[in-house]
């Protein structure tokens, strides 16, 4: 194995992260290569220097400062949940109201369509005058006026009125 390939494995080698085959190849190479052997030693000492840095610890004030902040967040979290539930209920109420309004509008619209769609019918005037818009209808109206005039108007006026009906004026 070339020095270049071995060197790429040295970091994993010192971490025991090489495969058995790779480890064997590195072992075999460094036994006979002074430069790679020296590099291996330097990397091991570098790793040791870093690993031996003292581990720092938090101050005694750390937890006394953190705990109240966590409790505050807990309360904010509970208030937030309550606020979300209330908002959901309000939204639900609004949704129900909107749905009810929509249904009402739909019912009115359907009713109007039903009314406007009635065909072949004239407005009802009363049982005694119900008739199609034909000569029969006009004859009936004229007959009714004749009977009315006979009871209320002078004879000469009655004649004039009947003549106008006969002539269509």
């Amino acid at each position, binding site marked *: 194995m070339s020095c270049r390939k071995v060197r790429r494995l040295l970091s994993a080698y010192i971490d025991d992260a090489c495969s058995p085959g790779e480890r064997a190849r590195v072992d075999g190479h460094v036994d006979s290569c002074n430069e790679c052997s020296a590099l291996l030693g330097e990397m091991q000492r570098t790793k040791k*220097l870093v690993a031996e840095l003292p581990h*720092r610890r938090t101050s005694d004030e750390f*937890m006394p400062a953190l*705990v109240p902040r966590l409790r505050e*967040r807990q309360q904010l979290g509970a208030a937030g949940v309550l606020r979300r539930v209330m908002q959901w209920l309000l939204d639900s109420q609004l949704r129900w109201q909107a749905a009810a309004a929509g249904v009402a509008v739909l019912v009115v619209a359907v009713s109007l369509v039903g009314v406007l769609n009635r065909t072949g019918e004239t407005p009802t005037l009363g049982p005694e005058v119900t008739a199609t818009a034909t000569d029969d209808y006009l004859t009936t109206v004229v007959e009714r006026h004749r009977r009315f005039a006979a009871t209320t108007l002078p004879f000469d006026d009655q004649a004039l009125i009947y003549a106008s009906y006969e002539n269509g004026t």
Partner: protein
Amino acid sequence: MPNGDIALVQRAKQGDAEAFARLAAKYKDRIYNYVARLCGDAPEAEDLTQEVFIRAFVAMRRFRGTATFQTWLYKIATNMALDVLRKRRRAGPPALPLDAPIETGDSSVPRELADTAPEPHEAVARRELQLEVQRAISALSQKLRVVIVLFDIQGLSYEEIAEVLGVPLGTVKSRLFNARMALRQRLTRYVEQ
């Protein structure tokens, strides 16, 4: 996930601050050490660690348990620490280095730290070395810094690091290799034989 964490995590997911506080007490030093080594600044690191736990508590409902709680915490800590580093880079170098001389009219005197009891030579040398190693880590790019701290200092496995960073295993290996080569370069006088 460790057995002791499961019940606490379930309660914390329901918003139980006391349960979460117990988790925080268990992991605070690990996270603090991590962000301190990433950011190279111990005082700021404690504030940042607080913020990591606050954010984690707020986000607990979204924790699905596919990763361990520790891995999830490291994810949050990594993102927040890198945010700090990016802002710091945009802000530029600090106005006054710790050892800048003090101007006094027509002369200047060296800035000195508060007097302390004399230390043994070995302790001073060890502290200087540790400062040098931290400077070398801080000089790495953010991507390389994160992997070297997570592996060599925090003790996470390759797989855990891959999960924290959301990258393939091969990427973790490659970044560790590059980080160690760069550190070796900076720390030549300490590692050469």
